[in-house]
């Protein structure tokens, strides 16, 4: 190779005029340079992997480590520093990863989550009732993010973890700061410390009085038997709380907007509600809201598609790019809610770190989108799309706000 151009940062800008598209640079990279170099904020560089097959190869190979303390791990503001304390199981490798993840896998298994469906439906209907009563629908519209998209996942994960929902303003604010690409590092560190303090106090309270919830069970079954420390329980709380929030919330917002702008598809889903499951898979593929990774560091020299990645080199996997790879998804830039292989998407990642909460996310999306279509068939954006604040400044893509009327 004879390329001496300095690597540019990870692409984030959507194609002009299309707020739903993945960063525009990915399409060209997949064709001309599927494994390329990007620069990182700390001045180092990492490999950027943009093809679907290579993404699955990297994420499916445990020689690519998720451990942020391994030298060369491509850190971002979102992943924080390489601290060994409170890093959560997603930043560990087997066998530690397997041990920690299995402590909570049953909480998110399909039948447990399916059993929650009526409760998720009830929460959704109540929030929709409140939306119907909301003032300001005519002038300026009701913000769907605050009225529905954020409260549903927030209420559900708070309920599951045993976090008082009354505290949601606090942890939603802190989560927002943690996931922002644009806040200064010291502000993000302060938010991280504040969230840690909050969860530290919460876990301490639960140690005295563990409830029938995920944190309570971790304390009784794992902490009291010496399998987990207090800090590790707090790390579980941080991970599940953050992961359970912004991801689903932004998928709800973007998906609702997409369906409002595509009345034919919305009508099809209203006529045939059974299509909603496939539609959710396609929306996950189409939106691919994780814009900052996943990230890995090679622990051995590994060849990927004829390309040597050396031990100690970082890798950033471009999920939105893999999900628009034409070699897997025909006419990939088109939303097709009946696409037969939509569930092959890598929106939840791939490999042993694939999203633990995916069954919950699916049910939340199916319930919320199905309910919105049924209850608010005339819903539409209250402002032109150019005025909707899209989250190009965040690690998780979506809308900061989505004013709607009906």
């Amino acid at each position, binding site marked *: 190779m004879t390329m001496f151009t300095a690597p540019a940062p990870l692409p984030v800008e959507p194609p002009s005029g299309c707020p739903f598209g993945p960063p525009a640079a990915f399409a060209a990279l997949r064709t001309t340079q599927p494994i390329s170099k990007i620069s990182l904020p700390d001045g180092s560089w990492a490999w950027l992997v943009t093809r679907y097959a290579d993404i699955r190869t990297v994420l499916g190979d445990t020689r690519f480590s998720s451990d942020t303390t391994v030298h060369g791990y491509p850190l971002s503001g979102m992943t924080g520093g390489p601290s060994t304390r409170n890093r959560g199981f997603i930043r560990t490798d087997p066998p530690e990863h397997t041990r920690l993840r299995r402590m909570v*896998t*049953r909480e998110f*298994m*399909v039948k447990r989550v399916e059993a929650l469906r009526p409760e998720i439906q009830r929460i959704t209907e109540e929030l929709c009732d409140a939306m119907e009563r909301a003032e300001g629908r005519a002038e300026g519209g009701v913000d769907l993010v605050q009225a529905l998209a954020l409260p549903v996942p927030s209420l559900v994960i708070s309920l599951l973890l045993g976090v008082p929902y009354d505290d949601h303003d606090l942890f939603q604010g802190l989560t927002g700061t943690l996931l922002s690409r644009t806040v200064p590092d010291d502000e993000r560190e302060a938010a991280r410390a504040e969230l840690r303090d909050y969860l530290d106090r919460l876990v301490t309270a639960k140690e005295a009085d563990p409830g029938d919830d995920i944190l309570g069970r971790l304390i009784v079954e794992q902490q009291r038997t010496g399998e987990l420390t207090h800090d590790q329980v707090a790390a579980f709380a941080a991970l599940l709380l953050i992961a359970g929030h912004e991801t689903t919330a932004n998928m709800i917002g973007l998906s609702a907007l997409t369906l409002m702008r595509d009345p034919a598809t919305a009508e099809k889903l209203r006529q045939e509600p059974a299509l909603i499951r496939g539609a959710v898979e396609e929306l996950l593929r189409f939106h691919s809201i994780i814009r900052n990774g996943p990230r890995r560091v090679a622990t051995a020299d590994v060849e990927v598609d004829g390309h040597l990645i050396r031990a100690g080199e970082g890798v950033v996997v471009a999920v939105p790019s893999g999900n628009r790879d034409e070699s897997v998804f025909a006419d990939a830039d088109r939303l097709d809610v009946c696409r037969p292989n939509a569930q092959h998407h890598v929106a939840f990642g791939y*490999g*042993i770190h*694939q999203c633990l909460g995916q069954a919950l996310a699916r049910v939340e999306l199916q319930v919320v989108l199905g309910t919105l279509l049924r209850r608010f068939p005339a819903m539409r954006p209250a402002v032109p799309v150019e005025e909707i604040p899209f989250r190009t400044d965040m690690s998780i893509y979506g809308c900061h706000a989505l004013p709607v009327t009906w």
Partner: protein
Amino acid sequence: MKITLDADKCCAAGQCVLIAPEVFDQRDEDGVVVLLDAAPPAAQHDAVREAAAICPAAVIEVHA
């Protein structure tokens, strides 16, 4: 069709259960995959192949 599993590697993503619920289930204690039918009828073959193709930990092996 004959199915074998490497359950030790399972990360309990649960997609196999969604795709082929008559062939796969999850263990109550930890969500790890359970094989309900190691030699499913032809009507299940497509779903099983699909489950094997998207299993994130490549746990499901399908033998002709």
